[in-house]
């Protein structure tokens, strides 16, 4: 299991495009990882048979720890029994979630002073 850490990049889980979790193997399921970041996901059986935590996947792949019994469309996953295989973008709200602020590059201090034409350009 440990070798994976060297060769596989830890998947980034985003909610509607906002990166929220680096899935580095500290959590046994996607649901646990989401809950650790206080993402609001409804869950009941947490074993893949009630389907309460069904979530829409915008992009990315998951792999299942146990085969889910609940009915899933091609773009849905059950976070309680899966882990991300690649970077994942889920259709979940970031409301109340501690998010990693993306570094903002402002152009405030990099304004270009007035252009003056050089002699050879004219």
């Amino acid at each position, binding site marked *: 299991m440990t070798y994976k850490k060297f060769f596989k990049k830890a998947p980034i889980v985003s909610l509607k495009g906002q990166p929220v979790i680096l899935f580095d193997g500290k959590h046994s399921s996607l649901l646990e990882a989401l809950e650790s970041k206080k993402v*609001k996901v*409804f*869950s*009941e*059986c*947490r*074993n893949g*048979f*009630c*389907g*309460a935590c*069904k979530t829409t996947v915008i992009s990315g792949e998951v792999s299942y720890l146990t*085969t889910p*019994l*609940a*009915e899933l469309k091609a773009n849905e996953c059950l976070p309680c029994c899966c882990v991300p295989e690649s970077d994942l973008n889920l259709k979940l709200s970031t409301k109340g979630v501690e998010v990693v602020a993306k570094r903002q590059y402002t152009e405030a201090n990099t304004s270009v002073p007035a252009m003056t034409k050089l002699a050879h350009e004219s």
Partner: protein
Amino acid sequence: MAYSTFCQTPNDSTKEPMFFGQSVNVARYDQQKYEVFEKLIEKQLSFFWRPEEVDVSRDKIDFGALPEHEQHIFISNLKYQTLLDSIQGRSPNVAFLPLVSLPELETWIETWSFSETIHSRSYTHIIRNIVNNPSVVFDDIVENEHILKRAGDIARYYDDLIKLTQVHNLHGSGTHVINGEKITVNLRILKKSLYLCMMSVNALEAIRFYVSFACSFAFAERRLMEGNAKIIRLIARDEALHLNSTQHILSLMQGGKDDPEMAEIAIECQQEAYDLFVKAAEQEKEWAKYLFKDGSMIGLNEQILCQYVEYITNQRMKSVHLPQPYEESSNPLPWMKNWLESDAVQVAPQEVEVSSYLVGQIDSSVDGDEFLDFDL
């Protein structure tokens, strides 16, 4: 097609629809149209438990110490659950088995219904333990107007389907006068009745049960009636599976691949299905009012329980592709998750130490204080 317990026409059951095809003849599972039902059966069988495995003797002491309004909450919920499982223990068999045409689905329905009979037996186990005369509880179920009001709505869809099936079996399609009552029946009417019945069962397993679950777990959060909570937890685990199965059946019906006419009916019945769910939710909210009429309990009151009903109604309706009637909110009872998590269910008594499991029903823990008056 009239029902036969063993139809002698050879057929390939994988080419039949779920319902209203040729009745199942050979119970074979080597070829399956929908494998999910086989998986559900396996899961349900792996969940097998017996009420006697759970010791509820501590609950008698807890129950005696509860204030009267909390006893009312506890007993009323047990009565209601007894009613629900009385219906579920037989109705899927009586109503669905004559219509089903896939062996795996037929067996699933039987397995499902059987597990509900275990639930019924467990209520007797609990009630027998906490009251001296269980009849006081059981007899009231068919007299209590708050319970009967909902019983009517639950049984109606089953009764409707059963009656139409019988008429269709005996007299075929057409309008018939039976005991002075004019009944029109054809395959489409039957399919519509089945679709609505399945929706009603889904609402029952999805919403109605959860009000009682919430109360039982609220007691257990206070370390009261823990034996009962342990049983309810096993019941909740089964119900989640049943709920999943009716969601599967409804999705297959709505998808139309199984039976194109069913998909048309699903669209036609959308409003009726929506109303049925809302009515169930509103009835449960009224029930919450009745439960807390003499006072709330710590950790749960009418308002929170009603919010919970609205919250799960939205969730469940989303699962069967219906619009959501209530405003979106966050889960008002987040701790329910700890009780509904199936991994936390104690599988075998010897595996995990749970506070209410006592070997030989004798508590062997001795407090140091008990030796204080000893003189040597």
